[in-house]
């Protein structure tokens, strides 16, 4: 009976996921091909799947991700000649099996799956739906394993380190899971614990992924993909360093005051290590639960405002791209404050990247077309705009104009405007279909930052005075930059 129920739930989940996945509008508008491929992958039992394992719930999602990846790869090959296509499909079949067995740690597989959404070939709005489903799945480590991590990290059991510690995790997080606990001094905290050995698994997974993508080496800019994968690996490995995340968390916390109504939880150093991160527990809900309360426009706008202030504060003051803006990282608090959690996937722009990033924005604001073209050429890894096909330049530039629309509009900007959002998506689709995906690895994260944030605000159906916020936040930088030498030690 239970098995039947589980099967029904699984097929329901599968349907929801299938609905959420993007389809190829030209060759597969109904998604039939996608469905058959995913069913095929799901039913293909690799030995790993026949064990009910720690990542049981995750495995359905992992298989769907694998299926989707296959679909995506196929669609990339649709223009190739028949022989090449067959050859590539044979490669793909072999690679798919590999993907099924890829690393036994589903956590890493899922993370890699999510990161693939960074490659601009994948459509962000729909994929964001899938990703949000992935983030709150059942936690994979049982408590005995958590205890072993604690003994290794602190030399003591969780119940000894804390006054009280929940056996059950309440959320899955960056390559680990989060438990609720209470300090001896009474504070309620969230304790994030990393899966043992995850960094190695990530390296192994990425190695497998490069093999998996091998069929693409003739069809797209292979070196460019490799460079991006290397960047993804770098970021994922950075995410396994909770000590670094603690530093990010403290910096972010220092960027906001009570008046900002944005909260970054306090880090408890004495309860944190490279693999365990203890922070203040923020009470509140995630976006889906917030929307389920049928909030009024005022509330939606309020949180859109806070989210915009929060992300651009981090951008302008700390030169950060919060590159993992998935819905689980934002907490809607009952008192109207916005909580920001999880800074594992934060890209700190180098001085060169920071200047470059702002040159493009400034050129667009100044309507300096030659300057903007030069910046775009560089972002696309061309020496000069004249080296780019005119159509490529045009498509990428119109994407950038779309990005800049809120910056240029006086007054309120409506991020819930469907036309606006879809124009951005259409541009990505067009660029992808035409193969205009060559770009600096940094653009992976800036795209993720932009689309993640905009998809979130679109879902929220919120408005804010974006230009005013941008002017406020960017002005702060120049003033502060002038003052800095005086204050610096």
């Amino acid at each position, binding site marked *: 009976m239970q098995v039947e129920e589980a099967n029904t739930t699984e097929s329901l989940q599968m349907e929801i996921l299938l609905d959420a996945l993007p389809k190829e509008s030209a060759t597969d508008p109904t998604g039939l091909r996608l469905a058959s491929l995913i069913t095929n992958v799901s039913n*293909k*039992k*690799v*030995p790993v*799947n*026949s*064990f*009910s*394992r*720690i990542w049981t719930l995750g495995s359905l999602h992992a298989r769907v991700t694998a299926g989707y990846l296959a679909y995506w790869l196929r669609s990339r090959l649709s223009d190739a000649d028949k022989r090449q296509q067959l050859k590539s499909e044979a490669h793909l079949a072999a690679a798919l099996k590999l993907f099924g067995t890829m690393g*036994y*740690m589903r956590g890493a597989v899922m993370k890699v799956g999510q990161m693939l959404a960074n490659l601009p070939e994948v459509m962000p709005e729909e994929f964001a739906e899938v990703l949000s489903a992935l983030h709150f799945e059942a936690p994979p480590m*049982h*408590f*005995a*394993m958590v*205890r*072993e991590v604690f*003994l*290794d990290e602190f030399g003591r*059991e969780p119940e000894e380190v804390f006054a009280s510690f929940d*056996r059950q995790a309440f959320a899955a997080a960056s390559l680990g899971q989060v438990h609720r606990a209470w300090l001896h001094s009474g504070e309620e905290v969230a304790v994030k614990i990393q*899966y*043992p*050995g995850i960094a*190695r*698994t990530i390296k192994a997974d990425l190695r497998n992924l490069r093999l998996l993508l091998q069929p693409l080496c003739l069809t797209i800019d292979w070196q460019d993909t490799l460079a991006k994968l290397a960047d993804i690996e770098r970021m994922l490995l950075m995410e396994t360093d909770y000590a670094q995340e603690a530093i990010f968390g403290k910096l972010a916390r220092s960027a906001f005051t009570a008046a900002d109504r944005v909260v970054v939880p306090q880090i408890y150093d004495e309860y944190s290590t490279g693999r365990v991160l203890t922070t203040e527990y923020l009470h509140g809900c995630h976006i889906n639960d917030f929307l389920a309360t049928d909030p009024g426009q005022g509330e939606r706008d309020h949180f859109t405002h806070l989210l915009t202030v929060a992300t651009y504060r981090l951008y302008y003051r700390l030169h950060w791209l919060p590159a993992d803006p998935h819905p689980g990282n934002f907490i809607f608090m009952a008192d109207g404050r916005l909580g920001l959690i999880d800074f594992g996937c934060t890209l700190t722009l180098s001085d060169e990247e920071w200047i470059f990033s702002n040159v493009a924005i400034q050129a667009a604001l100044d309507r300096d077309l030659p300057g903007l073209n030069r910046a775009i050429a560089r972002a696309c890894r061309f020496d000069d705009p004249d080296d780019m096909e005119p159509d490529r330049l045009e498509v990428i530039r119109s994407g950038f104009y779309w990005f800049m629309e809120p910056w240029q509009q006086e007054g309120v900007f409506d991020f819930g405007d469907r036309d606006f959002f879809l124009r951005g998506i259409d541009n990505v689709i067009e660029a992808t279909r035409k193969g205009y995906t060559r770009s600096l690895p940094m653009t992976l994260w800036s795209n993720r930052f932009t689309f993640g944030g905009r998809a979130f605000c679109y879902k929220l159906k919120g408005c804010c005075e974006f230009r005013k916020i941008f002017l406020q936040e960017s002005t702060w930088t120049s003033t502060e930059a002038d003052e800095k030498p005086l204050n610096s030690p």
Partner: protein
Amino acid sequence: MRISEQAKQETRVRILEKAAELFIGKGFEDSTTRDIALAAGLAAGTMFNYFPSKETLAMNMVGDAFRQGREDFKRRRSGKEGLTEELYLFVASGLRRLRPLRPFLGPVLERSLSPFPRKNICPEGETARLEHLAAVQEIIGRHGFAETPDYVAMTMYWSLYLGILACWSNDESPNQESSHALIDYSIRMFVQVISGVGSDKGEAHAS
């Protein structure tokens, strides 16, 4: 003059300590019984009264560690664990106690716990195996299994466990963290075998 039981015990402990230092410092293969006796301040002949061979000595250490591990496990068990989790706790508690011996454990375990037919069965190794399996059966018994698992299942368990020991004693990752997933995997597999759930009836290999 009769040596008191206490003095005997102290000598035994001293020999084990010195042997452990030598095994860790020089390696198991390169440490001789003479070295150990010398370090413990004993005549070689006297030491043989305590431990007839180097293997016996090392397996005594292992046996002690296993016993301490079982004690730790009993203390740590909350009673809320499921079968898989409880077995994991049991195995992990044992490995934690074995950890100081890890640098020289590989050859010792290979000689004393080998599942292959041997002329000389190491009695300490055999004792360690039987005690370990008895503890596993006790755990299984707590989780609603009326019958003890049969010979095949327990042999399978022991094979998995030896695999874990082999991997763990060779695991260079910090705190042997790479082995944790293997332990968990192996235990889940065993639990599935004895529970008879989730059988794939061989279709996994049909295509």
